[in-house]
């Protein structure tokens, strides 16, 4: 059964990111892949509370700034509500830094999905994002009280592309 397969995947990924120790850059890349899959592909939005600093600020496109962890959660909820079948494909991850001083990460990925949920633009359109919807982000990870957390982030999506999918012609 598909649900069983997904349940097992989520358990395996959750185990992989739990109490993670980012000793080197390859650990960081593995963590980013698994964590990204959990949040977007498997809708494990609640894990944001595990890995974002509470007072995190995320700078986004068009002068938008998310202040605090609740704003980050809301942002992801709105995206997944609009595209409940959302999947992301990571194309590349660049890592700089080390375990002692923290890491800087640049992630490039593509969003794929269909607008089958209500959005601020109205009822679902049934339109697909296609496979060119680009997402770039740069974020910083530091060890805080023994736990690796994202302390700052800059995150941009192809908003025009998403709006096209969420609006009728």
């Amino acid at each position, binding site marked *: 059964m598909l649900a069983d397969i997904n349940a097992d995947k989520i358990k395996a990924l959750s185990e992989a990111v739990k109490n993670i120790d980012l000793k080197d850059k390859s650990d960081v890349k593995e963590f980013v892949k698994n964590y990204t899959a959990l949040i977007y592909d498997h809708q494990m939005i609640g894990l944001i509370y595990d890995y974002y600093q509470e007072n995190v600020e995320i700078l986004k496109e068009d*002068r938008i*700034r998310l202040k605090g962890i609740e704003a980050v959660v809301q942002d992801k909820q709105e995206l997944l509500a609009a595209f409940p079948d959302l999947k992301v494909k990571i194309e590349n991850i*660049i890592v700089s830094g080390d375990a002692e001083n923290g890491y800087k990460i*640049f992630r490039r990925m593509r969003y794929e999905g269909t607008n089958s949920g209500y959005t601020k633009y109205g009822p679902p359109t049934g339109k697909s994002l296609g496979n060119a919807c680009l997402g770039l982000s*740069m974020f910083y990870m530091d060890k805080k009280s023994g736990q690796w957390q994202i302390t700052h982030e*800059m995150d*941009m999506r*192809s908003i*025009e592309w998403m709006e096209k999918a969420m609006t009728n012609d």
Partner: protein
Amino acid sequence: MTIAEMLKERDQLVEYVNICELKTPAEVAKLFEDYTKTIWDFKLVGRINDFYCDDIIINREGGSDLVGAKQVFRDTLHLMAAFPDLKLKFIDIFAEGNEADGYNFGQAIYFDGTNTGYSKYGPPTGKPLTDGDVCLGLCECRVEKVNGRWKIVEEWVTRSSAATEQTMHMNESIEEEESC
């Protein structure tokens, strides 16, 4: 800053761009920060030729990809003409890779300037790009040796396009368009 001071700063950047051999990721990051400033802050637009391939592919956020260095020139000149005091502010840049396999670098920047020049949206609005918060831009570049020279062969870019366009739009003209 006097013109003499400005030229001194520019020449220091140009010198590093000219001599850098891209031996480490740290050198790559410094090179492309200095290089980008020479083009945007000091308007040495022709230096796009230094590191952009003739057939570069720029993957943009809206799917309207640019292909070829000529498009890069056109895009750069359009933004500069609209914002003559444009300055590019680096938030961060870092790279990964090596001399044998090439490099990838990621950068976060924002543009600072005021729309005092004509653009495809019409006459200048006098509006600043940084209005309340910054117009963020992120990009990743793939750098490889082509015919013995380091070149950017592919780029992935997201800019704050809606906010940038809004800066170049008079409110009145938007209302007129909407009422049509």
